[in-house]
């Protein structure tokens, strides 16, 4: 589904992603883990078109999509959420969802003015869809609330809700579980699994909650220092020495190397 080939991204002297190659298989829920600063979010931003890589290629279903803008990638079925919820604060929960579907006829000014019937019919369809999504996320009672007033966890749900407003093929979730309580987290993983099984969404999930990763993801890819360190099932990853060193002993080991 997504193939990352030899991607490089530098910020000044810092190499955030360093010749990284990986693959997210069709229909999988692929986990992306790694210590802070491993380059996961930067890689996400690169795949989603928010930043342009300094080198390498990104393929979506075999098609080269490197450097395409986010809205073009959206049209090709790639959507993303943000690590820190990016809700539209002073817009209602319903509006936050209704803004999503592409090519709404009311988004064309001439339709809004001259073909109000068509624009209205489209608007009703989008609203129905948004209500379904809210039902699924159990946020219906909050639909007319301003999104800025939601709790942290509810904002996370809304982030996922946005991806459900279209028929995406692949969804990039950046730390969907961070700051979400256990009950809500259970609901969240349920939603992700349902979407994966019933609607065939492919997921790629960055997450620090290893329980969530273990429960949802196969395969799991571990990154460190901008590169892929290991790939496999969660059990394999847990036993992998390079991964353990990156998480617990990496700093100590390099420090030892440096002094030696």
């Amino acid at each position: 589904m997504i193939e990352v080939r030899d991607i490089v991204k530098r910020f000044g002297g810092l190499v955030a992603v360093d010749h990284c190659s990986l693959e997210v298989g069709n229909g999988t829920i692929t986990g992306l883990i790694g210590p802070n600063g491993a380059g996961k979010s930067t890689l996400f931003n690169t795949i989603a078109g928010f930043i342009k890589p300094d080198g390498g290629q990104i393929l979506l279903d075999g098609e080269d999509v490197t450097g395409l803008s986010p809205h073009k990638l959206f049209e090709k079925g790639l959507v993303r959420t943000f690590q820190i919820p990016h809700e539209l604060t002073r817009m209602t929960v319903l509006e936050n969802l209704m803004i999503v579907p592409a090519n709404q006829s009311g988004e064309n000014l001439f339709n809004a003015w001259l073909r109000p019937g068509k624009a209205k019919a489209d608007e009703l369809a989008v609203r129905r869809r948004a209500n379904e999504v809210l039902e699924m996320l159990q946020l219906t009672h909050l639909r007319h609330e301003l999104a800025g007033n939601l709790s942290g966890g509810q904002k996370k749900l809304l982030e996922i809700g946005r991806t459900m407003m279209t028929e995406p093929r692949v969804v990039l979730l950046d730390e969907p579980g961070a700051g979400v309580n256990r009950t809500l987290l259970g609901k969240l993983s349920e939603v992700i699994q349902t979407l994966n099984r019933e609607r065939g969404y492919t997921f790629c999930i960055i997450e620090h909650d290893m329980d969530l990763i273990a429960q949802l993801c196969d395969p799991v890819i571990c990154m460190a220092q901008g590169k892929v360190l290991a790939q496999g099932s969660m059990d394999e990853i847990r036993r992998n020495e390079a991964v353990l060193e990156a998480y617990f002993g990496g700093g100590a080991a390099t420090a030892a190397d440096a002094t030696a």
Partner: protein
Amino acid sequence: MGGILEYAVFSLSLVGIYGILTLGLNVQWGMTGLFNIGVAAFFAIGAYTSGILTTPPTDAHLGGFALPIPVGMVGAIVVSGIMAFFVGIITLKLRADYLAIATIGIAEIVRLALKNETEITGGVRGMPGIPRPFDEMLGGQYELAFLIMLLILLGVLFIGLEKARTSAWGRVLRGIRENEDTTLAAGKDVVNFRLQAFVLGCCVMGFAGALYAHFISFISPDAFKPMLATFLVWVMLIAGGSGNNKGALLGAVAIWAIWSGTEIITGMLPADLTTRAGALRVLLIGVLLEVILVTRPEGLLSEAGERMRMIRREARRDKLAEDRGASGARSSAGE
């Protein structure tokens, strides 16, 4: 017509023209968050375009092509729009503050061009003899006829912009203003939408310029100084309620009342004080802006209030539909 009535008709016409300018700025700043401080440029382009198109042939400036006034107005809208398109393509990929710098520069370039491109614009001598609509109607009381026409056009424009604001298009603009990244992630071509809002706003400003030209019948570069044609419009929008079309119009009325009211008062002062008081009026508007920003930053008619009313109405309607659905289900279950 009595003197006071005549003054009222004249003032209302100017307020109407300012109201249109403020509505144009509201599309850009209020709805989308585009920091355009070159309002004067597009106002001037509209005025001069319509002037050149409709004046009788002359050696004093380009044209005149002696075309009908409606053609001049449409031409003003089109030329301002084209100008905005090119300015927008260059600047709208920049962040907000850079757009401000770019537009203020463009406004000055346009003003200097008006002054110095004598063969096109008539230079500092200005452009006289711009035809007035309804000149022969109502026994020569063209001002009243003009006001009626202006109010009708303003009404149509207002309805059109309200439609735009409450449409899916307006929602995308609001999204861009709230959070550009989210709107990008929602698959919107953000730069394109910003360009649309910028061009639409500038078309409206150009339209106001054409109305101004045909109302006063004489234009010169002095009419398009930033103080009157940009700064005052900004104060009107912020005082009235940025993001709210009704607020934009109310702001135009209120600030105009203060602006011209102080002119009357300073006019009554002894001659040596009058000039000094003129500078104080500008200061007063500045102080007023400060007071509004500190005490009521959302303006007289806030956008949030307007939107909350709409949201509550929607919520009520949804609840009603649900109740009806529930009772419908109950009654069908009872059958």
